């Protein structure tokens, strides 16, 4: 394990890497330094903080699951099918990743919102509304988070060895069976990484949520919105909430170990 990597970067590259590490760590050092630690317990025990945390947990986990259910088939199609306009479809499905979340929120408002293209019928026929409901939060989160899963899984599927799945098919497996039992296990690392990334993005979602779903305690005020609201009235509380969010996301990302990133290890 201690053997030097054959492609060890030169000193200059390592220095630049160190600068980058400092760049990413410094903001958190600043946050941790300023945070009133005594208040950390308050924000997870007082009603408003607990409600926001619970809402964020529920919605982000659901958003991650929905991203898997709908994102894996999309990645499968994008990775294996050749059809005209595939690149356009891919770009459309991934664009929310780079779009300002507010733009996503506005688009959702005009499509699924109460007077939107589809939303008005949902309201008229079923009395169902995404706006100002937790479902709206989930939709906003799925919209911005799913591309992370699609991108990760599609990349892995493209690199996956197709011969095993072909062998399974010649032995009589249905396409679904071969995909589930042969292909998925071979890309499980990427699938987990994609799911965790999508969850993390959903957990931190702010702009699309407040624009599309609104901001109401218990139904749409997620932890990130709670943090933003507190910034104006009670900065100490806002910092404690920020530390909580950093902590949760950090713990989850640490569990995303490098072997899940699908890299070939040359040890």
């Amino acid at each position: 394990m201690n053997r030097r990597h054959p492609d060890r970067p030169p000193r200059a590259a390592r220095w630049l890497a160190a600068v980058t590490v400092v760049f990413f760590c410094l903001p958190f050092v600043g946050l941790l330094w300023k945070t009133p630690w005594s208040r950390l317990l308050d924000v997870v025990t007082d009603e408003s903080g607990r409600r926001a945390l619970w809402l964020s947990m529920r919605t982000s986990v659901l958003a991650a699951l929905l991203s898997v259910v709908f994102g894996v088939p999309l990645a499968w199609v994008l990775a294996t099918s050749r059809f005209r306009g595939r690149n356009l479809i891919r770009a459309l499905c991934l664009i929310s990743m780079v779009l300002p979340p507010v733009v996503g929120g506005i688009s959702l408002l005009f499509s699924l919102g109460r007077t939107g293209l589809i939303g008005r019928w949902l309201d008229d026929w079923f009395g169902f509304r995404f706006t100002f409901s937790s479902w709206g939060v989930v939709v906003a989160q799925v919209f911005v988070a799913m591309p992370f899963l699609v991108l990760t899984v599609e990349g892995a599927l493209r690199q996956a060895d197709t011969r095993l799945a072909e062998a399974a098919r010649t032995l009589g497996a249905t396409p679904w069976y071969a995909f589930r039992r042969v292909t998925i296990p071979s890309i499980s690392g990427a699938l987990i990484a994609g799911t965790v990334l999508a969850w993390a993005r959903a957990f931190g979602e702010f702009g699309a949520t407040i624009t599309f779903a609104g901001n109401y305690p218990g139904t749409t005020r997620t932890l990130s919105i709670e943090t933003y609201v507190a910034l104006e009235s009670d900065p100490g509380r806002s910092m404690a909430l920020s530390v909580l969010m950093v902590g949760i996301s950090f713990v989850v990302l640490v569990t995303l170990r490098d072997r899940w990133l699908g890299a070939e290890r040359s040890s």
Partner: protein
Amino acid sequence: MRGIRVAVLAIVGSSLMAGCGGDNPTTLRVMAASSLTGAFAEVEAAFELAVPDVDVVMITSSSSSLAAQIVDGADVDVFASADEEQFERAADARTFDPPRVFATNSLVIIVPPGNPRDVRTVDDLARDDVLVATASEDVPIRRYTDRLLAMAGVTANFVTFEANVSGIVTKVATGAADAGIVYVSDLVGADVEGVDVPSQLDVVARYPIAAATNSSRAELARRFVDFTMSADGRAILVANGFTAP
């Protein structure tokens, strides 16, 4: 290929230079309450015409958010707040000239075009089928709204607490919410209809403005405040739905 490379170099180069650009002409940083956005854009244009070599940078957000930024050390030359409380909060952290009330604003109920839920009175805001948008606790419009509702003895059916007045107007204009209470000045140019509030319930919002002292630009900042209070400034404010005291 060569063309692309040149273009990329040009973009990178100009962005580097923008990052290091100097303050020339003098930049005046004016923080103004969200409800002043339209009016102050016109005040800015008129002031820049009247005073050469000044670039007014307008920062608009909820007064509570602006006050929080000032408390946090944000660079500011003029602060125009939608209530006196948020101004005092900022003035505790940084020294300002004594504030002058340059505008007042009254409240109005807004509904989407066509008033789909037939909202006619303040009492209607309590109805189950009327979704009402307002702002978070510390935003001035929320305080004025709460005061009005308390006087009327109405518990409104709030469904969302937006970050500022513009958020309320957007939610109502897009029909996501059925009603909201905002300032009369917000009706100007917005795709909403107004429902008058009975005058005995109306709460008058008072807007203080002041120049920050202890800055090399304090004199210029005072000129901006004077300009806002001048006949020209008043005319702009009145045209935008405010009342000039």
